[in-house]
């Protein structure tokens, strides 16, 4: 589905994401490693992307739940660092992301027996999700109106276009950047800045603030298409 109208007006979509218990949980690294091949793909999605829509604070040090648990639950900072280096946007699909995770966990287990049975302070609960997406009916064609339109989009709509957009795009580009491409060189700097935003270390509200600020500054002289 063409969600943004890359060569026409920008159509604002939105998603609703509901966490679902998988029944899988882990208290040791070995248990985590055993569960990763079994969990549904939506669980990988939830722990890398969906986490942005659930209660969390901006000061998260890591970009995915596996890394956060390795550090905070297991006390294995080295593993946490390796897991947080995974850039899910670079994976062609969730299957590839799963393989990368398995390799990292396996490599860590190979480094010492102690790591395989050390118990974490808290269990890791694998959570899957159900997501649906829909057209909000909101449309904008003008570069001038675009920053305000993004600013007044809901958090779920912003999540869909910016964070999830990067996952859906083969080149890892968010929906806003893809739409701005049709305006050519005039929006190149804005697109460059959007592409540089590190999307995982902020709350959704903060991230939205950053993106709106880039759009407001960069599109100030924009005009109607």
């Amino acid at each position, binding site marked *: 589905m063409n969600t943004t109208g890359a060569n026409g007006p920008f159509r604002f979509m939105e998603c609703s994401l509901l966490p*679902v*218990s998988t029944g899988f949980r882990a208290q040791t690294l070995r248990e985590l490693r055993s569960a990763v091949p079994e969990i549904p793909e*939506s669980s990988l999605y939830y722990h890398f992307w969906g986490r942005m829509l659930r*209660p969390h604070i901006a000061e998260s040090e890591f970009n995915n739940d596996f890394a956060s648990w390795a550090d905070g639950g297991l006390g294995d900072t080295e593993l946490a660092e390796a897991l947080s280096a995974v850039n899910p946007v670079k994976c062609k699909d969730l299957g590839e992301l799963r393989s990368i995770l398995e390799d990292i966990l396996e490599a860590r287990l190979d480094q010492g027996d102690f790591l395989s049975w050390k118990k974490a302070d808290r269990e890791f609960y694998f959570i899957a999700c159900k*997501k*649906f997406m829909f057209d909000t009916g909101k449309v904008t064609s003008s570069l001038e109106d675009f920053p305000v339109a993004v600013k007044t989009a*809901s958090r779920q709509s912003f999540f869909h276009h910016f964070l999830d957009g990067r996952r859906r795009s083969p080149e890892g580009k968010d929906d806003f950047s893809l739409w701005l491409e049709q305006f050519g060189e005039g929006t190149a700097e804005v697109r460059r800045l959007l592409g540089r935003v590190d999307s995982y270390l902020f709350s959704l509200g903060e991230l939205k603030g950053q993106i709106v600020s880039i759009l407001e500054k960069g599109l100030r002289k924009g005009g109607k298409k």
Partner: protein
Amino acid sequence: MMSDMLKQYGEVIGFHAMDSLLAIAERLRGKRIVHVNSTRAGGGVAEILSSMVPLSRELGLDVSWEVIEGDEPFFACTKTLHNSLQGMAGGLSEGQVASYTATNERNAEKLKESLEGADYVFIHDPQPAALLGMMPGRKGKWIWRCHIDVSAPNRSVWRFVKKQVEGYDASIFSLPDFAQPLSHPQFLITPSIDPLSEKNIPLSKAEVEKTYRELGVPRDKPVILQVSRFDRFKDPLGVIESYRIAREHADIRLVLAGGGAADDPESGEVLSAVREAAAGDPDISVLVLPPDAHRAINALQSGADVIVQKSTREGFGLTVSEGMWKRKPVIGGDVGGIRLQVINRFNGFRVRSPEGAAIRIRYLLTHRWKRERMGVNARQYVLENFLITGQLRNYLSLLVTLDGGEGEWERWI
């Protein structure tokens, strides 16, 4: 055109968020939704439904709320169920099982027409859970909403409850820790508070002062407050112990405010124990408030210096969210839903003992600017995560999701 009520919510959560809610509700127009629980007043479930049902109707949805009727033996049984699901030893006697079944049968007869014809039925907690098996002609989807911390249930009692809920189309738990092996999908949705309710609207300083005066609580020293039902899992005796430890270093008052719920026969017993522990201390106020004393609770929370919710089991602490909404950091027990609500040093502290609560009380009283900073964080955190509009959005999304069947985990509608 948005109604006045929806506009008021829009002013709190943003009109874009209100538009989203309307867009999802639009997909459920014409469907009939029924909520069923065991009490109209008192306790978190009744409070949530008191807000959610009118808000749902305002969104154009056909929603009703039914309350099952039970006698004393039934509520004694369901209190045992509740306690056992939270891990207390013991089990249900044959007489209790008979009372549970007979009460559900009586209510099934009364509610048959309403429930069998509904498109979606939310059954809240174990009390009315057996209704499903008594509705052979049901046409809609049934969802069991468990508000209890069932992370480590008494196994024999869980088996009994499981038998009642296995046939549902889905269940909802507040946290992944609470989910149990069941053959249907288990969604994870946190409960919420209503920013427009009497309990959470902003009050004037004069009203807060007046309420404290009327309730006989002087404001001559910092007030430590716990608002909760007199229930052993809320650990009011532990709070008194914390206060006594903290008082060695700080001149403070303790207010324990709460009431019973119509479906909680044990509260009298716990209240007596609390009164006994507080006897002879003029700086402890034990306030038994009627179930509709929402404004008084609001005033108590708004005027308190430190809010405590030292539960030892907690499905989800609505009073935690209420305190945080009033820009107060909260000292909460490190259990259940409180783990999701209170982030250490960000919007409060999680503690595991009376000693832990005492040291955090002292810390917050002596670090005013940190207390204020954490209070600001607390308000924002509730705004983003724990308001009734968000919970309703999740419930409606769940219904839309159920209509989509098993299929792919992500889809366009």
